[in-house]
């Protein structure tokens, strides 16, 4: 019985991954039937998923605490714009890289420290931060003079605009996150804190310290995401990374992460979710569904995935 239950649990745990494989298979099959350039498609999918995958991987730490950060997209935008300006001022891409990471981590830390000083739930400060950052985007663009964009010369970033570089960034960062999440005390403490904050407190875990660590990890991801955004499309405008905030939330949930955080949190959710979303979009495009219907189909599949992934939790009638 136990074995059977374990097996069932594993199947449910693997649902998001199975979903990704299924989407991958559908993409390949449809791609072959419909005469799609599948090899280029894989590259496209990596390009389209990478920023969300990176930022969402860091955000898993925040979600594990049962919290969320609504300002991630705006933070990425501000970091990217500032990184772009830093490049234009110094002509050094590494400086731009450091500025992206540094600023994103600072914004993130500011969120969590502010929350701990005022004893507020962190997401409250992130809501305020969202407005501030959105305003900052406009200010930065205006500061830059031309009024509508901050452009890094595309030749400067071209050498880095390769799938290899981007995957290396994702893999290195993912490994760092996975290491912290699975192989250190921090990951354990965060899961307990997300699942039962009272019990965590009575086990000597400091919620403030954990929140600060989680936000710092997420900040690194935002910075990396911002830098990869610059590399991908060096013309930055007021709308740069504007959809990232929402995409991150969707990716995390799509990847099988429980919104309430806790023990079932998984570091791989973000990557699985981000890639699944992109495969789904690509499939919609192959089928040439217009964006309205496409969105609805996506929404339906999203609900289905979440339903299956949480099925076990909701349907549990425990023997007593």
């Amino acid at each position, binding site marked *: 019985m136990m074995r059977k239950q374990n097996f069932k*649990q*594993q199947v449910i*745990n*693997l649902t998001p*991954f199975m979903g*990704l494989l299924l989407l*991958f298979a559908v993409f390949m099959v449809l791609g072959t039937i*419909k*005469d*799609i*350039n*599948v*090899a*280029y*498609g*894989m*590259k*496209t*999918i*990596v*390009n*389209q998923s990478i*920023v969300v995958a990176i930022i969402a991987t860091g955000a898993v730490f925040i979600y594990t605490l049962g919290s969320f950060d609504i300002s991630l997209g705006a933070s990425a935008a501000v970091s990217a714009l500032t990184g772009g300006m830093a490049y234009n001022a110094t002509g050094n891409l590494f400086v731009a890289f450091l500025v992206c990471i540094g600023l994103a981590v600072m914004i993130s830390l500011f969120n969590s420290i502010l929350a701990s000083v005022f004893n507020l739930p962190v997401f409250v400060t992130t809501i305020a931060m969202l407005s501030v950052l959105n305003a900052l985007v406009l200010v930065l663009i205006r500061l830059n003079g*031309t*009024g*509508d*964009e901050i*452009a890094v010369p*595309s030749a400067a970033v071209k050498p880095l605009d390769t*799938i*290899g570089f981007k*995957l290396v960034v994702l*893999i290195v960062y993912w490994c760092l996150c*996975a290491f912290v999440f*699975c192989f250190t005390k921090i990951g354990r403490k965060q899961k307990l804190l997300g699942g039962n904050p009272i019990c965590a407190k009575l086990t000597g875990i400091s919620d403030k310290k954990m929140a600060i660590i989680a936000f710092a990890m997420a900040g690194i991801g935002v910075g990396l995401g911002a830098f990869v*955004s610059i590399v*991908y*499309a*060096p*013309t*930055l*405008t007021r*709308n*740069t*990374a*504007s*959809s990232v905030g929402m995409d991150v939330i969707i990716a995390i949930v799509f990847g099988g992460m429980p919104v309430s955080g806790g023990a079932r949190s*998984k570091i*791989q959710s973000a*990557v*699985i979710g981000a*890639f699944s979303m992109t495969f789904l*979009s*690509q499939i919609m*495009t*192959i089928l*040439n569904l*217009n*964006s309205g219907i496409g969105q609805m189909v996506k929404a339906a599949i999203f609900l289905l995935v979440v339903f299956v992934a949480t099925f076990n939790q909701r349907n549990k009638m425990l023997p007593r």
Partner: protein
Amino acid sequence: MKKVLALMLCFALTIGCLTGCGKAPAGEEAPAEGQNETTEEQEGAQAPENEDPGVELDMSKTVKIGVLVSDSTTAESLAFQSYYKDYIASNYNVELVYSDELTDAAGEKSAIDTFITNNCKAVISFSSFDRMAQLEQCAGAGIYYAVATGTLTDDEYAQVKDNEYYVGAIGPSLEIEFQTGYDMAKYYLDQGKTRFAIFGGAIPYYTEMHIYRAAGMLTAMVEAGGGDYQGASDKDAIIGKLFETASIETGSIGSVEILGYVGGYDMDDAWFAKCGQMAQTEGLEVILAVGNGSDFFGSSIAGTDVKIASVDAYATAYGEAMEGGMLDYLAGKFSASIGPIFIATYSATLGAPIRTEDGCALALSQGYWVATSAEQFNEFYAVDSSTEAPAYTKNMLDTLLGTDYATFEAFVSKYSFEEIQTMQ
């Protein structure tokens, strides 16, 4: 165990992605091969073309063309979309693949990646965050690229005109934009109106077409009023002034007065209040808008004698505004104006690109239809919105397939309503 399994699967995915990239060079070769084919076809097509324009092209294969959409809500974009979706797509053997509504350069790049994946042979772009990057990306993949509306700046054109994958742009040149503003102001100045307000649209964002339209208005006022605008008295000086301030100063230009100015699209309460205030300025006779004016000022002037003039497209809303007295003058794009660029693009994918005598990409200008009464509007609108017989019908467009530059240019240059009617 579970974790190990999950990690292994993740690893497998990564490998999958990597192999995907491993294949990428091969993938790049594929379009490159296609490229060669195109060139061959091109040569094959071009040779007879010179002898006999209007050569038979092989249209048996469905050609996929990607369309970059930057806006899917305004009247203009809806009218354009409808022409492509309802008329072009059903009359030509093409599959138009639309992007989502794009909001930044990254979105453009990502959408073009998707088009390349889907083996689109060309991209027609309504989105202008980074046109140079769009073209570079398309050319890199060996597919054609065309600007659907608007034009490139001279500098930009100089950079790309020799690029074989750049089809070109057909739209109101800045010269035409200037003229549109000039004509609009002159229309009222000739009626003896002297008290104006201006809506500057995207002037604060340094959008060229809006600056040129406004410069046209101001130039007309300088000519009629006999003064100068902030010390500038000719066209170039006025344009320079506007680029310097990204705004319009109120005040007198000789006998003409600018009583109010609003710019930007902030769309917040304060902004709307400012719009309302401006429309109700005492003594105001005309509001000249570089873009859509009736939506922002129409309700405020209801029941007064104030006239509104706008630049946009032929959409029902404007007809209603005209009938309701909320719009007096409309310089509007007609939706079929994007027909010729489609043909130029399609023709290129079929191996018969249309280039200038020097082999450069197209840079043609096309202006607006001006309606000054509801009747006139309705007449234009009936043609513009028709899905059976739009302004440019299939028969008319077919004459352009694989044609020479002179024929194409002549066709495009006769864009007024009357001229098009006589062509049919």
